[in-house]
């Protein structure tokens, strides 16, 4: 049985002697080939955990390993397992060209120059940067710079990719490019990806699994589908009827919001009879039914409900 791609056991990090616990006894196992969304509000412990995995920060206690190699005791082997794009960081040299950057980062991971050059050519071609490979990265757009940063993380063809806010500050088109790239890495190349982002639609679309951290502790760690289904409210409905100026009479617990064309009615029913009774009532008020749908929570709603729950004592 292969070692987990990422394994964190009872990881704790306290900054300073008396500072708060940034990470508080976190454990996580990520199987090879999976894409995990690592979510949490600012200051929850995401970047701290990623920095520990990347060997840039020491843990107060606990262990972290990449590809079965402990990031402290087997540092050299662990460092060979991953590529990373760090949050709020330039990641690549703006004074160098994308070609020079990729060769440098490839060599930094121990690749021979010929291997680094071959891989760089493929990555730059795939990312549409080949024609501009000799231009300084400092002159690129933010999206192109981020593409180079991701390419630098991929130059040694690592099995594990740590992406900390890879779409931060990108416009819609650049975000789409990065999303497509992550999807291809996961589905076509079987990479293990740990992704943190505040763009939850990206996580919902790409991640097999979601772990939410708050105040240094995991509040959930489930497959994305399971997490969403747990929060699915089977008894909550959205009913659209034709917009009217007269007020709509509704049972307790229902609200109506009038738009230009539709009035949107939302609320909770006890059972099917309640629902039929409501529809009958609306018909009785002369309001033609436009649509009826069960309310499906998105990841954003789930995330907010998880991180806004009262803190544990």
């Amino acid at each position, binding site marked *: 049985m*292969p*070692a987990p*791609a990422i394994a964190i056991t009872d990881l704790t990090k306290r*900054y*300073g002697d008396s500072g708060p616990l940034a990470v508080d006894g976190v454990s996580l196992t990520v199987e*090879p*080939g999976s894409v995990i969304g690592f979510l949490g509000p600012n200051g929850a412990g995401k970047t*701290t955990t990623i*920095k520990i995995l*990347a*060997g*840039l*920060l*020491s843990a107060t206690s606990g262990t972290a390993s*990449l*590809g*079965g*190699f402990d990031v402290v005791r*087997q*540092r*050299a*082997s662990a*460092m*060979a*397992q*991953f*590529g*990373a794009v*760090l949050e*709020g*960081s*330039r*990641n*690549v*040299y*703006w*004074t*160098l060209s994308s070609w*020079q950057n990729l*060769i*440098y*980062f490839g*060599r*930094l*991971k*121990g*690749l*021979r120059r010929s291997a680094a050059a071959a891989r760089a050519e493929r990555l730059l071609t795939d990312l549409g940067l080949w024609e501009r490979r000799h231009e*300084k990265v400092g002159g690129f757009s933010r999206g192109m710079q981020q593409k180079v940063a991701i390419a*630098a993380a991929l130059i040694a*063809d*690592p*099995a*594990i990719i740590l992406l900390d806010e890879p779409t931060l500050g990108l416009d819609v088109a650049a975000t789409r490019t990065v999303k497509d790239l992550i999807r291809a890495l996961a589905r076509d*190349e*079987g*990479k*293990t990806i740990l992704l943190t982002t505040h763009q939850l639609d990206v996580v919902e679309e790409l991640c097999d699994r979601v772990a939410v951290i708050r105040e240094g502790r995991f509040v959930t760690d489930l497959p994305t589908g399971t997490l969403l289904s747990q929060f699915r409210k089977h008894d909550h409905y959205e009913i659209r009827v034709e917009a009217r100026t007269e007020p709509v009479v509704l049972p307790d617990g229902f609200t109506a919001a009038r738009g230009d064309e539709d009035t949107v009615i939302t609320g909770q029913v006890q059972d099917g009879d309640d629902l039929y009774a409501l529809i009958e009532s609306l018909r009785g008020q002369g309001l033609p039914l436009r649509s009826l749908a069960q309310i499906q929570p998105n990841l954003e709603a789930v995330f907010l409900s998880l991180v806004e729950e009262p803190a544990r004592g």
Partner: protein
Amino acid sequence: MAKHFAAAPGAGIRTGTTVLAAEVRKGLANQLAHPLGHIVTLAISVMMYLGLQYVMGQGDMRDDLLPATLIAIGAYWFLQYSGQVMVADLIEEKRSGTFAAALMSPAPPWVAMCGRLVTATVFALPIAVLASLVPALAVGIEIPWRWSALVPYLLLAANILAFTFLMAAIAIRNPMTGALHSLLTSLVLMLNGAFMPLALYPEWMAAAARLLPTTLAIEAINLVLFEGGSLASVWSGGTLPLLIAHTAVLAALGAWLFRRNRRLAIAEGRVGQY
């Protein structure tokens, strides 16, 4: 599915040399990204030196002062440019975040530092030679050569690199090291003999100057080249032992601070960025 690999036996040395070479290549490319800046600096350095000597000679170029001061100004530029590669670039990289990216390598962290040290040497040495050669050719300064001067010349380079390494080790945790480095290099420029030979300074000022990098080495070079001293006499006179001790202390302090600051920076989460 992507596979995981352990570092192969023997891969450590190969990876180390690969990373070292990559670091040097990147460092040089980084420095040469804006060549005009270096050309302007070099032109200013030549004019500054010649102007300085004109003022010190009270309207005349004094042949008795020029050779010794030229060696000192060359040493200053070696120190200045080593610092630019090792200290200023390190601080800039930590501020921008590329330093963190460079640390995620299978090679031990000191390999990248060695790469920077090699880059500092490879880049700063030609600049120092050029900054000395141009005024030498311009006003016809002749510096005699004796093979025994090679020892203090090599010790001068070691002294400068040890000081630069110490500054870089401090810069791992402290972004204000750039200001400290600028202050110290300015003191070196004033006191190492680039204005006038150290023998012309008051005794207390010469004693203080000997604590700074380059001064003792320049003194040793002057003794060998201009006063006909042998290495044995420079040793017995105390300059060489003091120079070796000075260099060793700087290097040892640098190594100790590098280990300490790296350990603390990793604990504080500031190893990659301030």
